[in-house]
């Protein structure tokens, strides 16, 4: 069963957003699912009239054209006067299994994290899965499913496996452990739970957050659960938080909180 029934893609016409539209197009075309393009605007005092309704409509049309070129068959445009985060969540809320796709431009910069960017807010507060696009890809070939063997990470790997099947990518189980033996054991256990005995596996040694963020570069997509993205763990510093902000590739942040189930 495909994990997602609709993609909700946010765009503001920037390079990062265009990359997000490209990736949304790739997924939607291969899975033959619809895409909702969300562009938001609000009246500006500093530059009156700029980036208002006509801009939002044209930007959404531009994204529509890009998606059509990628082969997406069903596209909806939502140029809305709203906060981007709220609009994305609201549109996603209209579907049972949505996937939000956005550019990751706001995740890496300290200023955006302090001043608040949509991608940063999504990473911490989205009730649905979010794919942060850092580099456009013409097709997904390798999808790495990061796990520490915990029940929530198992949930994330399961979703990641479905994503890999949906996009025709090669899945790979990934873990960071103290030593190879314990890592191998964890992966064997997870593979067993997933029912994929022959899935490719990889054990890394070191600091989980840093090494995962760095290793992500090797894959088209890294899949992790969002445990520790909200509440106290966020303040104390969680692996998911560090990886989300620093991952060197596209990242699928799977919502493993009970409300998402």
């Amino acid at each position, binding site marked *: 069963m495909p994990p997602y029934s609709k993609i909700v893609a946010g765009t503001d*016409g920037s390079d990062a957003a*265009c990359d997000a539209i490209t990736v949304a197009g790739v997924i939607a075309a291969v899975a033959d699912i619809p895409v909702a393009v969300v562009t938001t605007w609000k009246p500006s005092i*500093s*530059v009156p009239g*700029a*980036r208002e309704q006509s*801009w939002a409509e044209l930007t959404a*049309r*531009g994204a529509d*054209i890009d998606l059509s070129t990628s082969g997406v068959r069903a596209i909806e445009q939502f140029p809305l006067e709203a906060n981007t985060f709220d609009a994305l969540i609201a549109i996603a809320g209209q579907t049972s299994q949505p996937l939000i796709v956005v550019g990751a431009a706001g995740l890496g910069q300290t200023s955006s994290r302090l001043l608040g960017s949509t991608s940063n807010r999504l990473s911490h507060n989205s009730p649905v899965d979010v794919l942060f696009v850092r580099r456009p890809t013409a097709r997904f070939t390798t999808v790495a499913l990061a796990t520490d063997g915990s029940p929530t990470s198992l949930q994330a790997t399961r979703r990641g496996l479905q994503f890999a099947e949906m996009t025709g990518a090669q899945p790979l189980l990934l873990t960071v452990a103290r030593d190879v033996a314990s890592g191998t054991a964890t992966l064997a256990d997870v593979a067993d739970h997933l029912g994929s005995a022959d899935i490719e596996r990889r054990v890394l040694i070191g600091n989980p957050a840093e090494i995962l963020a760095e290793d992500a570069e090797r894959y088209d997509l890294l899949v992790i659960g969002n445990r520790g993205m909200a509440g106290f763990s966020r303040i104390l510093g969680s692996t998911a938080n560090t990886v989300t902000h620093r991952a060197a590739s596209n990242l699928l942040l799977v919502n493993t909180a009970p409300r998402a189930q």
Partner: protein
Amino acid sequence: MTTLAAGPFLDWEQLTGQSKFVVDIISVPIFSAFAGLITNWTGVIMLFAPVRFTGFYVPGLKRIFPYLPRKVQILPTFAPNGILGFQGFIPCRAEKMASLIVDTSIARIGKISDFYQQLDPDKLAKSIAKAARPDIRRLTTEIIEARHPQLWQSLPPAMREQVIATVDAELPAISKRAFANIGQYIDQLLNVKLMTVNYLRRNPEVLRDIIRGMAVPELRFMVRVGALGFPFGILLALWLSLIYYTGSEAAEHSAHGGFAIALPGFVTSILHLLPSWLWVLAGAAVIGIIVNIIAIKVVFEPGEPQPRYKYLWKQGLFAKRQHQAAHELATMLSLQVLTVQNFAHELLNGASADKTRALIEASVAEEAERILGPFIVVARNSFGVVDVQGLQRGAGDTLVEFAPSVLYDPAFNKTQAKKIEAFATEKFRALPPDKFGEMLYSAIEQDAWLLYAHGGLLGILVGAVHILIFGA
């Protein structure tokens, strides 16, 4: 208690218990920052609004207009017959910008025929033939009946079917040939520059929306940099204090234990050549002008990165963001201006429309003669004279009339828009940064002095308010 910092209504020194220096060093920078922000904010608004000339009749303006300096005459503040008003700089210079946009992008690729190839004429031809197919019977009947009602009626049904079947089979080829012929002469038929200029002149709001949407970060910067009025205000406050504390009033107060600065007599007299209220107004005007100049210069100059000793900010902000802005500009142009619909409209209804129609008729005529030849021989034997040219013209006209229904189809426009967007993005990105910046700067540069003057004027206004509240 002395009353040194006093406006007509309030004695600030008494109110706050602070010296004139303290009152000035706080109030002047705040007012200056306000002046800077408001001049730059209104300056940015002036770039875009109003989109169409708005003004009123001024008696006598028509008479004095010819005597005004050229620099003033060309401002977007005058309309013919003594109308004084204003039009935003960018909508006012729509033609100039449009021609620059074409010159720097489409024109640079070489010929319009290259651009025409981007539209995929073969596919266009196929689409038209495909779209016309369900109507072939009606169209063919109409064309022949319009010229020779009795000929069509008298043809045996089998022969009529044969004509329709032949037209149906040959239509893709006819359509392809017509488009190939158009492609061959496209340089004479389609003037993209004229089309773009005319379109944006007719729809200045499109250009306004494109530019305003594309340059938001720079425009926002232009407004915010007005806050530089604050540090300039500190300098002004220090200068005003120097003048005050070297003046006679301060000397008088120093006798009662107040503070005063003693300078050589000639320096003091130079400093006091102008009354202090004039210093406030002049200082505020200079701040209004300077922040406006900074806003324009930092955004547009220099195009190419320069060493910091030449330009503190190295490169104009707009040029620095060329990669991104080029894409935004290309997307907006491909969606609104360089559309298949506009190209088709220009070809079929524009300046060279008669040539296009003649070319299509000629292309159709060649084919029609071949298709209808055998039938015409039969018809001639039965009816005598047959208006072959009339038939061919009818066929050509029908194709021309039918084309827009395909060319204006949203799905078709979508596919082509992507190609044009990708094409234009590449061209805009490849431009040297100064050429790219020039597209926007050209609309502002020649009238920039009006922006600066308005900054000065608003500065004086804010300075006057400061005098009114705090005294000179």
